[in-house]
């Protein structure tokens, strides 16, 4: 090695960052106003909402968490995961069991659910991601069925087909309203966390993996490790969802975690908008409300066997939503929203 300095000399150009204007102030104002309105709406919601609406809002928020997680795996990192609901199940059972047998505090149980799901995700992700992305999809399908098998057969622990009855948790002594606030806080935090990821090198690496993983490799990204991380992170989010769901619905049984539910969340990601936090929120809201609307429609039409028709109809609609949005609206509702926003501004 000769005497040249080990670090490279960098051209002494005028700092380009100095003269950069701040992002358009008007847009920032509108965004802050928007967030404030949303925050106020969320906070005051219980005051004027019926019991049913409060229930639905809480459910939507819980589903937002799972959808956001799946979006990290599928939307940002481009990995197909077909077993998302199985990881929700892992979180649900883990936290429920801790609560039932040890009475541990709710926040601890939620964290435990996330960690459990994360680890299980690693177990299924590691062998398959070593090879090719296609194999991950297979592994998640295997996870879906084998975890269901475990939930169903390990009766001594999971309660088998009947499942577990979970005692309620009273948050801040405010009952349903307290739980609603807790869920909102957790959801908001996790959404912010997801968005923050993509302001940093971690998120950028996920997107690079989706696009061209060989190029990511030469940039110094350990492709297998990062894919595994994206996948297990999505599973962790699912774990949180499961933990919240267990206490919210007060029961945990295997039929809550079937292929139908995994397809539900995939549809939420596709419909809402892949690689978008707003998309996750819109998608979860849409998919959660949709079966309710469907049921009301069926009853309105005077259908006799609503319960019997509802399940297959849901399968048809979830599948149809995935197909139609992928074909005609690949950026989902968030993309639509973006287009309207840009279009609106241009015309004004």
């Amino acid at each position, binding site marked *: 090695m000769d005497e040249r300095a080990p670090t490279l000399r960098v051209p002494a150009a005028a700092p380009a960052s100095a003269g950069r204007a701040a992002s358009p102030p008007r847009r920032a104002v509108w965004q802050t106003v928007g967030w404030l309105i949303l925050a106020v709406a969320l906070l005051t919601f219980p005051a004027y909402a019926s019991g049913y609406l409060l229930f639905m809002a809480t459910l939507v928020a819980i589903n937002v968490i799972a959808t956001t997680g799946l979006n990290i795996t*599928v939307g940002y990192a*481009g*990995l*197909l995961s*077909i077993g998302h609901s199985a990881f929700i199940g892992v979180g649900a059972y883990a936290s429920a069991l801790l609560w039932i047998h040890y009475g541990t505090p709710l926040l601890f149980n939620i964290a435990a659910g996330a960690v459990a799901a994360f680890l299980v995700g690693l177990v299924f992700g590691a*062998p*398959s991601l*070593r*090879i*090719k*992305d*296609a*194999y991950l*999809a*297979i*592994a998640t*399908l*295997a996870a879906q*069925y*084998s975890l269901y*098998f475990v939930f169903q*057969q390990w009766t001594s622990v999971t309660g088998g087909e009947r499942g577990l009855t979970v005692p309620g948790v009273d948050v801040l002594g405010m009952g349903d309203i307290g739980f609603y606030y807790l869920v909102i806080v957790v959801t908001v935090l996790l959404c912010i966390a997801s968005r923050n990821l993509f302001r940093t090198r971690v998120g950028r690496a996920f997107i690079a993996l*989706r696009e061209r993983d*060989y190029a990511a490799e030469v940039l110094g990204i350990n492709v297998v490790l990062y894919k595994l991380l994206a996948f297990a992170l999505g599973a962790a989010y699912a774990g949180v969802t499961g933990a919240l769901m267990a206490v919210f619905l007060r029961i945990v049984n295997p039929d809550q975690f079937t292929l*139908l539910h995994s*397809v539900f969340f*995939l*549809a939420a990601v*596709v419909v809402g908008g892949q690689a978008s936090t707003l998309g996750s929120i819109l998608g979860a809201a849409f998919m959660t409300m949709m079966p309710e609307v469907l049921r009301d429609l069926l009853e309105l039409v005077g259908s006799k066997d609503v319960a*019997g*028709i509802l*399940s*297959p*109809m*849901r*399968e*048809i*609609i*979830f*599948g*149809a*939503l*995935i*197909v139609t949005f*992928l*074909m005609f609206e*690949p950026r989902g509702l968030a993309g639509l929203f973006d287009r309207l926003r840009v279009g609106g501004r241009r015309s004004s």
Partner: protein
Amino acid sequence: MHQILEFSIIGLASGSVYVLAALGFVIIFKSSSVFNFALGEMMMIAAYLCFATTVQMQLGWQAGVLVAVVGSVLIALAVERTMLQPLLGKPVIVLVMVTLGVGSIMRGLAGLVWGPDIVQLPDFLPRAPVFIGDVLIPGRLAWGSLVVGLIAGAFMAYYHFSRAGLAIRATSSDQVTAESMGINIRQIFSLTWAITGVLVAASGIILGALNGITPTLGLVALNVLAVVMLSGLTSVGGVVVAGLFIGWVETMVGAYLGAAWQNFVPYLVVLLVMTVKPTGLFGERRIERI
């Protein structure tokens, strides 16, 4: 010893049912890299079409088979043409998700039209047990695997000796070169789906004849998946060996360890293959040009 032999032959016979569906999966995957997650549901729909024609409309099993095969091909082509071809050029994950959605739609439709309860096809496969020496094989299984063997043989002949088969193999090997030789890639994709339509119809009907039909018949796709993975995702001939082997393993496990363990076999196979030998027994390592 005699018992082992008997179970073994039964195992091989039941494994043969997976072979046809697995063949359909492989030719689609090899030529277009699309993982057809609707494979099981395609089998299921074909079985129901046969049921509808034969039992519900009382038209006899020959008409049932015809309707099932033709219907299956039409559905396969419709899916490929209207939903997959417009998306060619997008990342494969998009097309795979579409097949997932299609599978869900098919499951729901079947549940809506025919309900969740199991239905049976009439006995068009002779029930009388077949004896090989003094080994007893249930009649329907024996005849079913014979039919499978014939169809698989016909398919292999077509694949290896016909011009269309050559075109499929060329496309599977190198799309760009195939196209520059004048092969219409899009037509090849449609062809592979149409052929799969025939193959899944046959295996769906036989499976339905053996075990009855429900909207969840498509679950057998997981067993087919295990077969395909063991074979190596890209080997047409390997699928035959893998299918027979897995059928054998499942039957032996079911006979000696019980039904619960038998259900577990496909997942174990999948996991084992991925950890130990990801390219399967006969798969090829593909080198991508960067």
